[in-house]
């Protein structure tokens, strides 16, 4: 047996290439090779091939550079055996099925199958477990684990497959002289079964040469097994130049490294001489590497993995599989169509989305939805769609394919379905699971002209060498990687069972680091001190070791600021320059057509008072709120308001003056209950509840709350000697024949007549006949905290409705403003004193007229700045339909600009003048 040679990877590749090339001299290029090469990694194979082609530039044919596993397969195939080693997906599935056979808490967590698989792999790779069981930490658990493995093996067998370890073991038995001589290139470690095959090859004299890249402690075990005699030490081969760079953030680091790569490329270094390696890369690292490489004009060899579940077809498949169990939620039903499901029912998804929202459909099966009394055509279609989905089986051919990535996803789905079909004992959950675990490989879309630079994780890197290597993400916890014991088979147990121990990994990590240092002439290590989002990252100990006193050796902390070309469309820059300066970007749009003001509701004016831009959006641009019925498990607040109002209206209308007394008439409570039931039933026929329990709770709560409210309300009426006279008093043209007062209330706002229309919840009139007092009452479902300090808010122009109503009433009923007052009645009693919800008209009238004049002028002059106000007092943005995306609300500068003129009046007056 030859003694091993020790050399860095690049040397190994050179020596082997030289040896193979020498053997080819004078031979027919198509003749068989005398020797074959066993490699531990693709990198080693590539390196040898590259070196060989340097020596035989015309090309080579027939040379096998194979892994031990491939060799094993070739050996078996040579004997006419073609067993199938279960693939990763099959093994995973098999273990998940195996785990299900045990009704034990240990077997029910998500990661247990993967864990069992890993331990199983170690056991199999170690060539099995010893017989001794004495001294195990938890024999019962080990027992259970062993039984799970047994079950796994049974499932694998039922798939007509064998475990990969068995493939190697079988080959071991058939190693003989017919195997061509092998060169063992670049191993420093092996699993037990790999070693068994290697030993068999050695024993059969089939190993013609051995090259080992290191003599680090971790490799000693392997070296001892291969060649148990003392060795001469390998001279430490360190790169000539090693530098360390620290960056502030991970982002800076990756971008900085890409900038360095671009620099080297621009200096003429061939791309294949540059490498980027990390101990491990998270998916986002890969994304960033590709993104910044693209930014800097090159590509990396890294493919990105997209979870199948994040692809629209994968998502649709999952949704479809879970739809029934979830109760057919509306968004998911429509999401399916958006994601590409083909159905018989033809429906415009966007229209259906809007209509079903308006109809307050949260979801539910077709049977429930059919109970709706009023249904538009679109809603009908929607119900038909749900009905179709209820019986639709899972079948990938139902998905619409439009792009290559759709094709890729559909193939993956087919693959999964085929696998599940092949394995006995699977359930739909396995399909869901398999889809959730599956990923799609995506090469970043970049121009093919760009140079390609190798990038990858350390284990894939083995065997490769570069002139310039960037070792990135040199962080604590990343490199060295921290190991934890296998909880199923801790090291103490492994020792007893003769299974390979995990250990602390220190030596292996050290070895890996030494491989990095020897793989390039120039090595740049880098790390970041934070993730960029507030998390502190610590540099790797290997870097700390290199850096003096923890200070960085080279480079600044931040890569040179990356500057892109200026946008060509200067309009965008103009927005930045001009916004917040009362420009056209800020709602200053110039004079408006006076017809805009033909009729205004008090709410509209109130909106203006709160935020002029909100008025512009809601009442000129007609922006509406978009409802989310699935998130509104309760009755929508607007519906609830209408319910409360109509119940109270009906109740009060049915009462006589004599009924307003304390104690309340006995029949009042039951009558209220009946009314509540009637109105709730009515409402259900319009908007069937997705969640019946909650609806019932609300119904009972309404009974209690309204009873309390009525009791307090009547007490208040009695105390103030008032009687409710008018309910839902409508005025203005828009109410047509239903109007109590067909004319609008016309108010002169600084010379401009404004027509106000509206509905007054209730008007109470004093029992005294001479100069009776009039009180305008407005119910608010809830505690009405927005209306606290009503009088003050009227003065500031942010609560106008009730005051305007009061003015209208004074005019309609021809009474002195002294006699008119208004009050908000919160239906849910809060801690606020009633006086804080009330005002007297005569105190407010003059200022109110002034305010209105100001508002009207501003509207006519087209002055609609945004005025974000979100303090406790009043919150203009809370009910604004664009509050999530309003620019002014979220921009310091713009906010400042409007807050300069805090009082809307000041703002408006200046705006109106300017």
């Amino acid at each position, binding site marked *: 047996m030859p003694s091993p040679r020790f050399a860095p990877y690049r040397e190994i590749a050179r020596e082997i290439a030289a040896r193979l090339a020498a053997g080819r001299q004078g031979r027919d290029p*198509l003749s068989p090779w005398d020797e074959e090469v066993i490699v531990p990694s693709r990198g080693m194979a590539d390196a040898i091939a590259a070196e060989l*082609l340097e020596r035989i530039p015309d*090309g*080579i*044919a027939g040379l096998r550079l194979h892994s031990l596993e491939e060799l094993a397969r070739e050996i078996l195939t040579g004997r006419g055996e*073609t067993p199938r080693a279960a693939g990763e997906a099959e093994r995973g599935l098999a273990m998940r099925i195996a785990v299900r056979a045990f009704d034990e808490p240990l077997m029910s*967590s*998500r*990661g247990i199958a993967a*864990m069992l698989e890993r331990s199983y792999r170690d056991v199999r790779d170690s060539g099995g477990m010893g017989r001794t069981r004495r001294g195990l930490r938890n024999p019962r658990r080990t027992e259970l684990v062993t039984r799970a493995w047994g079950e796994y093996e049974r499932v694998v067998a039922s*798939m007509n497959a064998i475990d990969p370890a068995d493939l190697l073991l079988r080959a071991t038995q058939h190693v003989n002289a017919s195997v061509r001589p092998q060169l063992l290139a670049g191993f420093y470690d092996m699993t037990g079964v790999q070693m068994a095959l290697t030993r068999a090859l050695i024993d059969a004299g089939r190993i013609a040469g051995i090259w080992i890249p290191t003599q680090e402690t971790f490799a000693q075990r392997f070296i001892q097994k291969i060649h148990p005699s003392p060795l001469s030490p390998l001279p430490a081969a360190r790169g000539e130049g090693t530098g360390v760079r620290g960056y502030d953030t991970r982002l800076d680091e990756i971008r900085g490294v890409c900038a360095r790569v671009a620099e080297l490329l621009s200096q003429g270094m*061939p791309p294949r001489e540059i490498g980027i390696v990390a101990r491990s890369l998270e998916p986002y690292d890969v*994304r960033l590497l590709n993104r910044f490489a693209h930014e800097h004009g090159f590509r990396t060899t890294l493919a990105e993995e997209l979870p199948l579940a994040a692809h629209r077809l994968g*998502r649709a498949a999952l949704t479809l599989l879970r739809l029934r169990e979830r109760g057919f939620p509306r968004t998911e039903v429509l999401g399916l169509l958006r994601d590409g499901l083909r159905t018989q029912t033809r429906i415009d998804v*966007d229209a259906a989305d*809007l209509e079903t929202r308006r109809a307050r459909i949260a979801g539910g099966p077709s049977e429930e939805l059919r109970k709706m009394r009023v249904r538009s055509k679109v809603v009908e279609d929607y119900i038909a769609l749900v009905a179709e989905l209820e019986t639709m089986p899972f079948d990938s051919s139902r998905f619409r394919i*439009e*792009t*290559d990535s759709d094709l890729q996803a559909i*193939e993956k789905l087919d693959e999964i379905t085929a696998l599940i079909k*092949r394995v006995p004992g699977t359930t739909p959950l396995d399909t869901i699971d398999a889809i959730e675990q599956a990923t799609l490989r995506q090469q970043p879309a970049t121009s093919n002209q760009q140079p390609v630079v190798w990038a990858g994780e350390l284990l894939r890197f083995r065997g490769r060498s570069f002139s310039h290597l960037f070792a990135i993400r040199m962080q604590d916890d990343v490199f060295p990687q921290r190991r*934890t014991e296998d*909880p199923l088979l801790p090291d103490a147990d492994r020792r007893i069972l003769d299974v390979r121990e995990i250990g602390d990994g220190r030596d292996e990590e050290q070895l890996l680091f030494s491989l990095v240092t020897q793989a390039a002439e120039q090595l740049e290590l880098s790390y970041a001190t934070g993730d*960029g*989002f*507030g*998390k502190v990252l*610590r540099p790797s100990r290997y870097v*700390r070791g290199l850096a003096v006193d923890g200070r960085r050796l080279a480079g600044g*902390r931040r890569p040179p600021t990356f*500057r*892109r070309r200026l*946008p*060509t*469309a200067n*309009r*965008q*820059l103009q927005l*930045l*320059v*001009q916004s917040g300066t009362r420009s*056209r970007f800020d709602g200053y*749009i110039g004079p408006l057509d006076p017809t805009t003001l033909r009729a205004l509701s008090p709410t509209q004016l109130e909106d203006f008072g709160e935020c002029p831009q909100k008025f512009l*959006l809601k009442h000129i641009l007609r*922006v*509406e709120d*978009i409802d*989310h019925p699935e*998130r509104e*498990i309760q009755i929508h607040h607007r519906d609830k308001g209408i319910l409360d109002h109509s119940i109270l209206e009906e109740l009060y209308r049915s009462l006589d003056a004599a009924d307003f007394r304390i104690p309340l008439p006995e029949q009042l409570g039951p009558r209220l209950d009946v009314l509540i039931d009637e109105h709730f039933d009515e409402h259900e026929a319009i908007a069937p509840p997705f*969640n019946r*329990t909650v609806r019932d709770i609300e119904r*009972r*709560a309404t009974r209690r709350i309204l009873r309390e409210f009525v009791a307090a309300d009547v007490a208040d009426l009695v105390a103030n000697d008032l009687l409710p006279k008018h309910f839902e008093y409508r005025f203005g043209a828009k109410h047509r024949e239903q109007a109590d007062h067909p004319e609008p209330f016309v108010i002169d706002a600084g010379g401009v007549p404004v027509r106000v229309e509206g509905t007054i919840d209730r008007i109470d009139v004093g029992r005294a006949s001479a100069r009776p007092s009039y009180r305008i009452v407005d119910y608010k479902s809830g505690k009405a905290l927005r209306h606290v300090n009503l009088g003050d808010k009227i003065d500031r122009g942010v609560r106008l409705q009730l005051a305007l109503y009061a003015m209208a009433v004074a005019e309609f009923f021809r009474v002195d403003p002294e006699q008119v007052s208004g009050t908000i009645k919160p239906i849910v009693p*809060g*801690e606020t004193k009633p006086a804080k919800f009330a005002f007297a008209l005569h105190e407010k009238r003059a200022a109110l007229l002034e305010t209105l004049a100001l508002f009207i002028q501003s509207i006519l002059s087209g002055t609609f700045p945004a005025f974000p106000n979100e303090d406790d007092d009043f919150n203009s943005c809370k009910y604004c339909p*664009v509050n999530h*995306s309003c620019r002014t609300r979220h921009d310091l500068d713009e906010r*400042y600009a409007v807050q*300069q003129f805090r009082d809307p009046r000041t703002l408006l007056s200046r705006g109106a003048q300017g």
Partner: protein
Amino acid sequence: MTQQSFLFTTPPAQTRRNLVIEAGAGTGKTTAIVAEVLKLMLERADLAPERIVLMTFTEKAAGEIADRIRMALEELLSVVSCQWSGTPGPGATAQTTGNRQPATWPAGSPHPLVTVTDPERAYRALTHHLEHIDALRSQTIHSFCQSLLRSFPIEAGLDPQFKIVEGFARSLLYGQIYDAWLDDETRVHPLPEAVREWELLFAHAGYLFQIRDLILGLINRRDLLAESEYGFGEFETDVLPRLEDAVIWIRRDSATCKDAAASRVAVYLRETPFDGGTLDEWIDYLQPIATAIREIDFRYCGALKEPMTFLRSGDRGESIYDRLASHRAAMALVSLTRRFLAFLDEEKRKLGVVDFDDLLLRTLALLDDPQVLARARSQFDFIFVDEFQDTDRTQARIVDRLARDESGHYVPGKTIVVGDPKQSIYGFRRADPETYYQMTEALARGGAERRVIADQYRSDPPLLETINAMFARLFPEQAHDPNVFRPAYHALRAARPWSRRELDARITLLHAQHEEKGDRFFAEAEAIAEWIQRNRDGGEKDLQRFAILFRRLTVLDDYLDTLQRYGIEYVLPPTRSFLDRRAPVDLLAVLRAIAYPFDRGAQISAARTPYFALHDVEIVHGGDAWDEFVAALDRFRDAAKHLTISQLMDLLLETTGIESLYDAAVGGERHLAHLEHVRAIAFEYDQRTGGSVQQFVDEIADRRGEPEEAEPSLVDETQNAVRIMTVHAAKGLEFETVIIPDLGFSTSGTESLQLFTVEEPRSLVLAGRAQSLSGNFRYANGEPLRKIAKHRDDAETLRLFYVAVTRAKTDVVFVVNPEEKKSGFQKALLSLLGPVDFADGREVRETDLGPVAFEKIDAQRRGDRARRRLHDEALESRLAGALVPFEAAAPPEPETLTPAEIAAKRAGARNKAAGILLHRVLELWDGRSETEPLLRQLAAEAAADADAVTRVRRRLLTISRSPTLQRIVSAETLGRELPIRFVEDGVVVERRIDRLVREHGRDLVIDYKSGVPEAARVEKDRAQVSRYAEAVARMTGRECGALLWYVDLEGDVAVEGS
């Protein structure tokens, strides 16, 4: 308690005691810890560093302590090694080499903490420890717990590969689980008991979203919800006797009240018989007079004043009825929360995730297992806990368990805790100084040494004098209150020399005058900006001196804006939620417009973002610009169909060039950083959730304010800029001048619900939106227990004040508004100074605290300095003029396939498995024997499905009749599946040749193809096979032919290569 400074001698190893170190601000706490570790290491050369655990409060601190220990070891080693070997080490000082004085640490300190007496032994020890120093476990308590749980996941009932969810991902997940739970509890599996609780709570809270807030808020105190020894109060014992007394009194006494409400109550109680009963029955009984009770005016109740007062209790919402009902709702809340926690735990277990709280709670529970506890204890010999005053009760219990032996006694010398009770400021993170008190007391009772470090190295002596004067008064010695911890002050001794700066006073009271309440923050900000401008010296680093420390960051915007207007650079480290900032909002506005085609508001908002930059006239009046914009949005929408969220973002950013826009903008770095954060979140969202754009937009909207994620610090430490941060973030840091604005902040009422424990009488109290009986009907010091929360808040505010002031090295500036209400720091300050008044300018007055400057600055110059918008000034002024026409940026049409292409590709995919199988058969088939057995065998190997096998079978039938087969068999086979490698355009190419034969002396490359030779395909295939043939020809120098063999179900065609 002994009070001493650093100097002491190392006790011999066997007499080591546990240690409680109290280290006031600026006394070098870290140094003290490093010294203790060094001593240990010197004493015990054989000690493995992994047997020392150093628990810190932050990752940063963990890294710093580890680094400092390493450096200290290196420092000492360099001195010791030259002493021992006689050669000067690189870091040795003349003093140590020359006269062989004992090596000390810190080197050159007049009060060294460590002294080496035996250099030889020390050398061995230091070398050993340095070699293994990486194994030292310097980590936060969370990562400590994490490693423990990773070792015992099964015992802890966790998924063995558990992942940690935090920040946005956590909030997202919890939100989703909550929704699923609510649905399960109420719609899918409504149990009567649960529904009753929902109903009670609903009646109390009014809205489901409020219940959601309450429950999701309460789970942060799950540690307390798990407490079994503390109760929420008992109706029977805490309330009933007094309630019955009151009712009996009212019924018995026929006295009438002048107050109408009270009369109604009395009449009802007298006329409606009720013999008492359960809490529920009482609530029902009192319900009809609930309003009346609230309205009782007990001033007019005459003889019934006392019982009526009991009934009404206080303000609205505090009547006996309200309190009982509130308790019932509170208990429903607690019960629902507990059920939610169980559900959450189960879901998290299934998903294999834990959050930071779980790490602690699970560890504590894990340590209940005696076997695990024994093994965990045996893993470490020494436990150091830094910032011990900020540990919460769970953390303290974990430490406590590890610190004891199996007999329950503290292991002597094992535990060293370091902290400053006056700096306990993390109440909102559950830090619990009462716990600090209890545990340090217990340690001391168990024999621990208490040490107070008094030498202060931070502040100038005159400033320190003032600090001592202030806090001796604010932290007076007082009797121990078991419920509210108020540490006493120990005066600090100035250990640092005077700085060079001459100042007339070390404390400045800066008056920020303003007329309107709303102007307050601007006024303060302007006063600060002016003051800084006046006091900076124009040197290169003249801004770095100043730090502005805030209690809360909610008011920060006004200050930042003002500094910007004044052109004062600032650095703002982490802490603000960023999703609500401009760049993310703009991006999400556009995404929303894409996701919601029918949302006009979203559309308009998107148009107004810099992505499109329409102005409002274009939006209101419509026209070409608007139409173009709508069309562009449609294009994005089309593209979005095929993209994940992060891909869509990439497309959007790239198409609209928004990054270059921010590049051009002043302050754009911050926008870019925020964008990066959103992109990271979107990527994570794709990976974990894979939801649609609609879902993503909604999820983000829900959580805009939630993630208290840190913001990247954009400027490195060396930048000449004012530091702005919270007092919390400033902990552990020091600055020359500390400026404290927003003094009169108020903290009360910030939380809608509080849950806390009280030691005497031992209780759990729920206060705020739902109140437990314990808070209202149990008392300490004559006050209901719920008030304790406020006292604790007040005590913590004082501690916070201490931390803020003690960050200063030379002077402190308080920004004072004498008119403001007295709360927050202002209250503390004015309690020391009495009422303050200001004249114009700066005036130094002698006070009890020493000289204090009163300064009034007239800074009414708001808004007169316009901020620059773009880096390029010329460009900016050019763009300030007339508007340029709108140009919409739209992405290219997505590349979609035609139906024919799709059909072909699908067919190809279906053929693929059959093709592979056929290749494999042809690889092994000798061309003569029966194919069926081989086909079966290889079908099993490839796990081919029946369809593929049938296809291959039919193809084999075709082949067997094919003349091409005869041609191949009769030629000499040189190789099957033959690997070839060659260089093409400088790149190594590796391919496999299906079969290489020699036919009539000519080499021939054969490529098997499944299907029929359509024209387009043949062309491509031919090019490919010819490439191989050319490669072979190059190798051999001989001619090489190529043959494509198309085999289909019905027939085969051989096509010669070119």
